[in-house]
């Protein structure tokens, strides 16, 4: 394999240190936070408008969640069914246990295709397996065709938000970026910037030998894969090159075509405030006899990469329902204040905080579940009813069990012991009230974290229990 890939694990606690550092930095950038919030402003309005078109959004969420629930809980039956149907349609399925295996499969397919130019449409699983680095290391030119992904590729950054990859970038930065890489004159028009990318990309679709896409759903009934996109770049990627390779996680299977009648509109409404995403395309194998065009071969890489570990956790199995709509990020106050990069994960935001510990290890990634006020906005927004914020609690519990912080554990044991003894607890309360003034002066660690940015009122002379006693007399 190649050297450019992240292989050796970083030092213990590095992910958490990086989170704290980046979060602090990001929070200080008030202008940027405001920019992100403004960018999302239109989303809330259009989402509410579109939701109102549903005759019963909550019941529709039931239907969507049941469709995913039933599929995820029958993967043992549906995966083989999908595979058989997909193969009957003329496609080939390649099973990949992990990222390394998936990369190897794609590289081998490119070698058999004698590919020179590869065009990609947005595919989060390829981010997950760091495919681009592997392709580039092997000398393939890869171009991301989705506008946001293209911008991120030119910037040398991963996506900031897994649905809106470059929502953090200002138009003038994009103008500079295009000027530098494509030699185009500066402009402050989003329209003109989009047209620059459009013109640049058209040649590349025509010339590419292989197109790589993701997949949003795999339909067991018909052996089709479903791809959701707005720009048309995935349509082009799967139309013009000789070979189409799709990469998808095993949890993307649904049972029936009919399930999409619920899931496709809900994905668009929840995630982007649209009635439907602009292109929802079902592919059943390569070009058929009598069809005008299409690839000669179609391959699907079916990826596990620790999804089965999440599947084995019955309590959090519903995290595999995720249709990656992005709604939970859009409403998350943590995401909006710390930004997408701070997470240091492929999947940002609430759902990323739930699944990353399963995909990459609880000990190193549990801080993501701690970095939440548990407000639950994500859970309310999720079209497939994933119990997101409660799963953060579950992760905290699992971490406390498997790798507790020693000091915290002692503190918790002490607290519980006191809280079961009313007189001790009342005495502790009294002591707290009496020493609060002093403590504010001394500033022990926990208090100083509070006092750095917030005041604390003086303690009242009397506790409630004392006041009550007096009142009853």
């Amino acid at each position: 394999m190649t050297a450019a890939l992240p292989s050796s694990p970083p030092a213990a606690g590095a992910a958490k240190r990086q989170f704290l550092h980046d979060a602090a930095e990001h929070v200080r950038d008030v202008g940027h936070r405001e920019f992100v919030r403004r960018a999302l402003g239109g989303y809330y309005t259009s989402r509410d408008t579109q939701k109102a078109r549903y005759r019963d959004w909550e019941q529709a969420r039931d239907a969507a969640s049941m469709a995913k629930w039933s599929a995820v809980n029958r993967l043992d039956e549906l995966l083989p069914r999908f595979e058989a149907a997909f193969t009957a349609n003329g496609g080939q399925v390649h099973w990949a246990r992990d990222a390394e295996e998936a990369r190897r499969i794609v590289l081998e397919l490119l070698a058999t295709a004698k590919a020179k130019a590869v065009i990609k449409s947005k595919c989060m699983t390829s981010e997950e397996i760091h495919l681009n680095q592997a392709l580039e290391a092997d000398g393939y030119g890869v171009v991301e065709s989705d506008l946001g992904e293209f911008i991120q590729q030119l910037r040398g950054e991963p996506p900031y938000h897994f649905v809106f990859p470059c929502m953090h970038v200002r138009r003038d930065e994009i103008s500079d970026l295009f000027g530098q890489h494509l030699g185009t004159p500066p402009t402050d028009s989003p329209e003109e910037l989009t047209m620059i990318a459009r013109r640049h990309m058209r040649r590349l679709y025509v010339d590419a030998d292989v197109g790589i896409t993701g997949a949003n759903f795999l339909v067991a009934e018909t052996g089709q894969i479903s791809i959701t996109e707005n720009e048309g770049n995935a349509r082009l990627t799967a139309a013009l090159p000789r070979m189409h390779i799709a990469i998808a996680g095993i949890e993307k299977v649904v049972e029936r075509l009919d399930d999409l009648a619920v899931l496709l509109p809900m994905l668009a409404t929840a995630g982007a405030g649209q009635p439907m995403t602009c292109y929802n395309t079902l592919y059943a194998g390569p070009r058929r006899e009598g069809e005008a065009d299409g690839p000669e071969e179609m391959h699907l890489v079916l990826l596990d990469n620790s999804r089965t570990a999440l599947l084995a956790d019955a309590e959090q199995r519903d995290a595999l329902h995720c249709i990656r709509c992005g709604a939970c990020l859009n409403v998350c106050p943590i995401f909006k204040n710390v930004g997408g990069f701070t997470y240091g994960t492929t999947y940002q935001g609430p759902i990323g905080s739930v699944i990353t510990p399963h995909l990459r290890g609880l000990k190193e990634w549990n801080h993501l579940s701690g970095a939440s006020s548990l407000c639950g906005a994500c859970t309310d927004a999720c079209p497939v009813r994933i119990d997101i914020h409660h799963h953060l609690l579950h992760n905290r519990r699992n971490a406390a069990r498997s790798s507790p912080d020693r000091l915290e554990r002692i503190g918790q044991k002490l607290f519980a012991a006191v809280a079961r003894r009313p007189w001790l607890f009342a005495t502790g309360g009294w002591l707290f009230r009496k020493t609060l003034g002093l403590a504010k002066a001394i500033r022990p660690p926990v208090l100083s974290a509070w006092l750095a940015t917030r005041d604390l009122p003086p303690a009242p002379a009397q506790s409630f229990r004392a006041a009550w006693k007096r009142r009853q007399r």
Partner: protein
Amino acid sequence: MTISLFIPCFVDQMTPQVGLAVATVLERLGHTVEFRPAQTCCGQPSFNAGYQDEARAVAIHALEVFAGAEAVVGPSGSCVAMMRVFYPELLAGTPHETAALDLAARTFEFGEFLVRKLGVTDVGARFPHRVTYHDGCHGLRELRLREEPRQLLRAVRDLELVECDEPESCCGFGGLFSVKFPMVSTAMAEVKAGSLARTDCDYIVSSDPSCQLQLDGWLSRQGKRPRTIHLAEILAGTAS
């Protein structure tokens, strides 16, 4: 009805007037109010940190304290949610499961109790101010209380209720989160308190003293108005 007060630990130590206001309102409505002094904490600090064995021990203590109470009413959506939603989950499969479910069914958040259980929205209060309401997340999303506090406020004489532009946003308190991730917590306070302050109101009304601590803490540090007030204090007429 005899109502047992559930006074969260920081209300006990930091905002006793809120507990007293709850009692005043309930008594005015003709109910008997009791306070069981053996009560301590709901166990949320342990539960939220992931220390469920410790939380369970505290929860069992609370079950014992409130055994046999006709109704348990607390002035914090967060602590009530702990009892209502998380005790049954925490104690599922233990000998205490039934008791937990039983307590969950008898425990209410203050405003919820008035509107849903007693069917009261007008308690005869007057408060000649412009106010906005801050939804605590646990009240809003675990207990599904959105209209109830607003119904109560709309019935208050001379009170003007306005909505802020971030009605569903969290204040950023989140218990230990506020000190484990203080910068994120503070940024959230800034967003929410900023939005509430933009309504140009005299008071921010809340049903959660923990949110009040956070919002006031930030507003006070910034030297900004307004300040928060608990719903019960308005309804009791004890607000200064």
